[in-house]
C-alpha cells in the first residue's frame, strides 16, 4: 500500500500540487468577481509573484518564507498602483484595461532580460515547494475568504456587485472595497505564482499571458462564483481534463475557450450553483451557500 502511494506520488506529485496552485488562482479571480469586477490581470500578477520570488531565492539567497512574502507583496503593490486609475472604470472597461495590462507586464518581463532572462525565461529555480506549503496555502486562503464572506466586508462586496450606487448610499466605501478585492486577489495570485515557480524550477513569460488568464477565468466560471467551492471544483476539472483525455492535451487552449463559451451559454451560474442545490432536501432557502 505504502509502495503504491509512493509510486503514485512520484508520478503525480506535480499534478496534485498544480491542482493546488490552480485552485489558488481560481480563488483569486473569484475574489474580484465577488465584488463585481472582472479583472483579467491575475495571470500577470501570478507572473510578478513568480519572478519576484524566484529572483530573490536564486540571486539573493533569500529564505523561502521571505520570498513567499515578497511574492505576495509585490503583486499587491502593483495592483494598488494600477488600481488607482483603473478601478474607477466600470465593468467592461475595467476588464479590458486589466486585460491590456497583463500584456504589458509580459512585455516588460521580456524586456528586463538581465533580471528575468527575457523571452527564454528563468531556469534553475530552487525546488523549495513542499506539498505541505501548497496544502497550507490553499487551506489558509480558503479560511480567509470564508471569514471575509461572513463579515461586513463580504456583504459589502456582494452589495457592490449587485448595485454599486445603492451600496455607496448604504455607507459602503465602494472604491476602498474594490481596491481591497483587487489587491488581495493579486496577492493570492502572486502566492500561486511563487509556489508554482519553486515547483517547476522554470518559468517563462509565455506562461503568464492571455492563455493563462483565460484558463483561470474558465476555471472560476465553470465552477460557479456563488460559493468558495465552485472555483476549487472548476480548477480541478480544468486541470485534470487534459490528463484524463490525453487527446485534449494539444488542444488544451481550444478546449478552455470552448468550455467558457458553453458554460456562459448553457450553465451561466457554473456547476456549483444554488439553483439545483436548493432542490436538495433539507437545504434552507438561502443564507450563505456552502
Amino acid at each position, binding site marked *: 500500500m505504502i509502495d503504491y502511494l509512493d509510486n503514485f506520488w512520484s508520478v503525480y506529485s506535480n499534478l496534485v500540487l498544480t491542482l493546488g496552485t490552480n485552485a489558488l488562482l481560481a480563488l483569486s479571480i473569484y475574489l474580484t468577481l465577488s465584488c463585481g469586477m*472582472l479583472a*483579467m490581470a491575475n495571470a500577470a500578477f501570478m507572473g510578478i509573484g513568480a519572478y519576484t520570488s524566484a529572483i530573490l531565492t536564486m540571486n539573493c539567497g533569500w529564505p523561502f518564507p521571505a520570498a513567499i512574502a515578497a511574492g505576495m507583496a509585490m503583486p499587491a503593490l502593483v495592483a494598488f498602483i*494600477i488600481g*488607482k*486609475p*483603473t478601478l*474607477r*472604470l*466600470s*465593468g*467592461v*472597461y475595467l*476588464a*479590458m*484595461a486589466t*486585460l*491590456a*495590462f497583463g*500584456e*504589458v507586464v509580459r*512585455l*516588460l518581463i*521580456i*524586456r528586463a532580460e538581465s533580471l528575468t532572462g527575457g523571452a527564454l525565461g528563468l531556469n534553475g529555480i530552487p525546488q523549495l515547494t513542499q506539498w505541505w506549503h501548497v496544502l497550507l496555502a490553499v487551506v489558509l486562503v480558503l479560511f480567509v475568504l470564508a471569514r471575509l464572506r461572513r463579515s461586513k466586508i463580504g456583504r459589502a462586496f456582494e452589495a457592490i456587485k449587485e448595485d454599486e450606487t445603492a451600496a455607496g448610499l448604504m455607507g459602503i466605501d465602494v472604491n476602498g472595497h474594490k481596491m481591497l478585492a483587487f489587491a488581495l486577489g493579486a496577492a493570492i495570485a502572486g502566492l500561486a505564482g511563487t509556489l508554482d515557480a519553486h515547483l517547476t524550477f522554470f518559468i517563462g513569460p509565455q506562461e503568464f499571458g*492571455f*492563455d493563462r488568464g*483565460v484558463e483561470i*477565468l*474558465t476555471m472560476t*466560471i465553470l465552477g460557479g462564483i456563488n460559493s468558495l467551492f465552485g472555483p476549487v471544483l472548476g480548477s480541478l476539472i480544468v486541470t485534470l481534463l487534459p490528463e484524463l483525455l490525453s487527446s485534449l492535451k*494539444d*488542444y488544451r*487552449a*481550444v478546449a*478552455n*475557450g*470552448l*468550455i*467558457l*463559451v458553453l458554460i*456562459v*451559454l448553457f450553465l*451561466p451560474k457554473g456547476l456549483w450553483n444554488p439553483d439545483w442545490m436548493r432542490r436538495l432536501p433539507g437545504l434552507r432557502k438561502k443564507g450563505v451557500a456552502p
Partner: protein
Amino acid sequence: MLEQQLFNALSLGCVYALFALGFTLVFGVLGVVNLSQGAIFMLGAYAALTAIVRLHMPLWAAIAFAFAFSGLVGMLIDRIVLKPLRRRDAPHLIPMIATIGLGLAINSLVQGAFGAENQRFPSEVLPQDSLVIAGISVTVLELGIILVSFVLMTVLLITMKKTQLGRALRAIAESPKAARLLGINVDGLFMLTSFVAAGLGGVSGVLIGLYSNALFPLMGQPMLHKGIAVIILGGMGDIRGAMLAGLFLGFAEVLSVAYIGSDMRDAVAFGLLFLVLLVRPKGLFGSVQERKV
C-alpha cells in the same frame, strides 16, 4: 526623416482606426465588447493568404475575400453566441466573457492548422514600387493601405450619417427596444453590423499583414489590446472618436519607436491609456461610461 515617419504613422494609424471602428460598431449597436475581434483580425489575414496561395487570387480580390470570410465568421458568432445571450438579457460582462473564450478557441485552432511560425504573403503579390510625393519616398503599399482604409471609413461614416440604414442603426444604439417598436428589423441589423464589423477587422488584419509582412496565429492579440486602448481613449460607441484615437495611436507608436526603441511599441498604447486615465478619467473625448440600457 520626420516626414517619412509621419507617413508611416499615417498608414499605421489608418489600420488601427479601421480595427477600432469594427470594435466600436459592435459596442455601439450591439452593446457588446467583442473580444474575439482580435482573432477575427487574424482570420482575415490568413484568409487572404490562403486566397492568394491556394486559390491564386490577385491581391485586391483576396482583400475582398478576407472581408467576406471574416464577416461571415462575425455573423455566425452573433447568431450562435450573442443572440441567445441577448434574449436572456445577460449583464454586459457575460457576452464579453463568451467572446474571450471564442477568441482563444479560434487562435488555437488556427495555430493547430497553420503552425505557430511566421508566414508571409508571397513577395510577387506585394506591390514593390515606391513613388516620390513632395520629396517623401512613399511605397505603393502604404498608399494602398491608406486608400483602402480611407474608402472604408468614408463609406461607413456616410452610411451612418446620411442613409436610412444609418439612422436605423443609430436608433438601435439608443435603445433596441424602442427601435423594435418602430418596426426596425433589429435582429437582422445586428447580424449585418456583426458582419461589417468583423469584415473591417479582417481587412485590417490583411493590411497589417502586408505592412509588417508577418502573419502568425497570435497576431490578433497585440492588436486587440491596442484596440481596447483606442476604444477607451476615443470613447466607446463613438465612431469619430475611435477613428481619431486610432490615428493618434498610430502616430504615438511610430514616434516612440523612432525615439525610444522598438521593443516596447506594443506597450505604448497601454502606457498612453494609463496616463490619460490618470489625468482624465473619462477618456480623451470625455465619453467613458456604460451604455444606458
